[in-house]
């Protein structure tokens, strides 16, 4: 524990600029507001503590030592040979978090997990395993950010999610990096019978590159809901996709993305595959171009491997309509106020089933940076 404290002190949380970085990604470090806290600084665990018995939180290193059975979950749905980045993450000094809600336990208060990049030019390697045991409910805020002044580095994050039968897992990941940080998460989820997996992603700050394509394997009557809010500022490239493989009868998926380019490049991918009877999937990509520079590329893909499937998508990219701005001006808003209101509305995704507290964190993350958009 003493080592943990010293690492924790290295965080320099008392500094307002550090506190604000943490808050911007939903990290409170306040036991009254969180069910558990995990903080990793570079490769070291700074803190790992649970305030409730119904949820376990520890570093992946400790978890692998404590539970032999965890081998059955480790590198099981993400392929360690998928690419150079998974191979690099498959190293001795990898760290990460293990979060598990116990069977039948419902944890309303969110668990927070923070991956913090402190050392400039370093390569942070992370492997997370999240298990919502049968009939349990678990809410997680995962905030990833870099230390003030640290402008370059690399974050490689493997995450494997297991939503057991009748369980519900809401996972909200908020990223706030710096202009020269490269981020390559590799994630996959298994959603068992009647399970619900709600995954939200928010990225509104500059970043050099984000590249990811998380996949959910959805079994019988399971549900996967993905929502992404992505802003690509100048010099940022965000290549973000979501895939749902509907493997079980009656399973469903909903993938929604709202992307904004203000000079940066966004590639919004989505893929739903229907491989069983009575599955239902819907994909929605909406993009907003705020400047003459930049690019948004929406690539929605639907794939049916069974006749009795219901898959649909809608994609729309555009700029803000002049007549909408004029209309709000006719109510007394200045042009800038009207544009701000429309952008705020665009980013407000109505995420089904998300707890109010997580909704507030997302709203806060948006409001903290939206002024940079105007």
């Amino acid at each position, binding site marked *: 524990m003493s080592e943990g404290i010293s690492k924790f002190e290295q965080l320099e949380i008392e500094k307002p600029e550090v506190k604000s970085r943490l808050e911007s990604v939903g990290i409170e470090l306040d036991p009254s507001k969180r069910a558990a806290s995990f903080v990793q600084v570079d490769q070291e665990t700074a803190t790992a503590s649970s305030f409730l018995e119904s949820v376990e939180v520890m570093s992946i290193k400790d978890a692998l030592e404590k539970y032999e059975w965890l081998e059955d979950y480790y590198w099981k749905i993400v392929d360690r040979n998928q690419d150079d980045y998974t191979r690099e993450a498959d190293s001795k000094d990898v760290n990460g978090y293990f979060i598990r809600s116990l069977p039948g336990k419902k944890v309303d208060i969110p668990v927070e997990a923070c991956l913090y990049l402190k050392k400039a030019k370093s390569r942070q390697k992370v492997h997370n395993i999240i298990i919502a045991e049968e009939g349990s409910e678990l809410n997680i805020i995962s905030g990833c950010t870099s230390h003030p002044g640290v402008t370059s580095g690399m974050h490689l994050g493997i995450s494997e999610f297991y939503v057991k039968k009748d369980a519900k897992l809401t996972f909200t990941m908020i990223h706030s990096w710096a202009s020269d940080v490269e981020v390559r998460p590799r994630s996959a989820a298994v959603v068992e019978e009647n399970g619900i997996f709600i995954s939200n992603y928010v990225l509104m700050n500059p970043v050099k590159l984000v590249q990811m394509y998380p996949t959910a394997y959805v079994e019988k009557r399971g549900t996967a809901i993905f929502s992404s809010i992505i802003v690509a500022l100048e010099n940022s490239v965000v290549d973000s996709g979501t895939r749902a493989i509907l493997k079980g009868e009656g399973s469903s998926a909903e993938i929604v993305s709202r992307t904004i380019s203000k000079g940066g490049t966004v590639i919004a991918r989505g893929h739903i595959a229907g491989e069983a009877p009575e599955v239902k999937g819907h994909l929605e990509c909406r993009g907003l171009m705020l400047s003459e520079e930049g690019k948004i590329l929406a690539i929605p893909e639907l794939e049916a491997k069974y006749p009795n499937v219901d898959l649909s998508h809608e994609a729309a990219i555009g700029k803000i*309509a*002049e*007549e*909408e701005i*004029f*209309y*709000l*001006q*006719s*109510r*007394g*808003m*200045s*042009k800038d*106020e009207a544009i701000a*209101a*429309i952008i*705020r*509305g*665009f*980013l*407000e995704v109505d995420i089904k089933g998300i707890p109010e507290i997580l909704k507030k964190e997302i709203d806060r993350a948006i409001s903290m940076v939206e002024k940079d958009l105007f």
Partner: protein
Amino acid sequence: MKSKGDVLRVVNLGLKVDGKTVLQNVNLYIKEGETYALFGPNGSGKSSLLSAIIGNPTYRISSGRIIFKGQEVTPLPTDERIKLGMGIAFQTPPRVSGVKLIDVLRFCAKIGNRSEEEIYEFAKKLKLEDLLNRPVNQGFSGGEVKRSELLQLLLLNRDFVMFDEPDSGVDLENISLIGEIIREILQRDTEAEKRKKSGIIITHTGNILKYVDADYGVILYKGRIACVGNPEDILNEISKNGYEGCINRCLREFPNLNNLK
């Protein structure tokens, strides 16, 4: 220069849209407390005139001036005209994706100096309580769109308010409600000498005039003001002899009006 009670002066206004002349030499003078009914066939320029007055950027003024409360507003953006005291209810306002009605109403209330309670009170009166958290005009019925326009205007509480066909597509049950609200906005139930609010109502059918009285009627014909008079007389004449018939009679009675022929 400002004379007492002077609200709106449109002086020799000419307007072009996509190079085509839409309005020519339009003159209009509206004083405090006065309500005008604006008639005219489709395409005569009625909505274009209101767009020019409110400052819609897609309408380019080619000549003339618009003076509001003694100040030239021709170069001002729409929001500044609103802050000076103008308001408008559009015939077919756009859907504003993502911006909730309640958020727009709160903004209107701030400008109109109305309270949060009044927002809900007026929303209830206009039967729009269930739409407050929906994006503006998204999935609204025709009647709901009209009532939402009026709700925004009630909260904006402006001195000079224009209504573009507030009665079109409104069912019989709702037209009296709409009439009542317009009467309230334009203070038609206040003694004439004490009225502060002025306005223009565009009406195609004249239906709304059964619920809201106007002081003057004006016909806009081929982009020009063709007739000014008692609104009921004009409406009767139009329904008997058509717009041309009405205008011919006007020309006989007021030979000084623009020569249209």
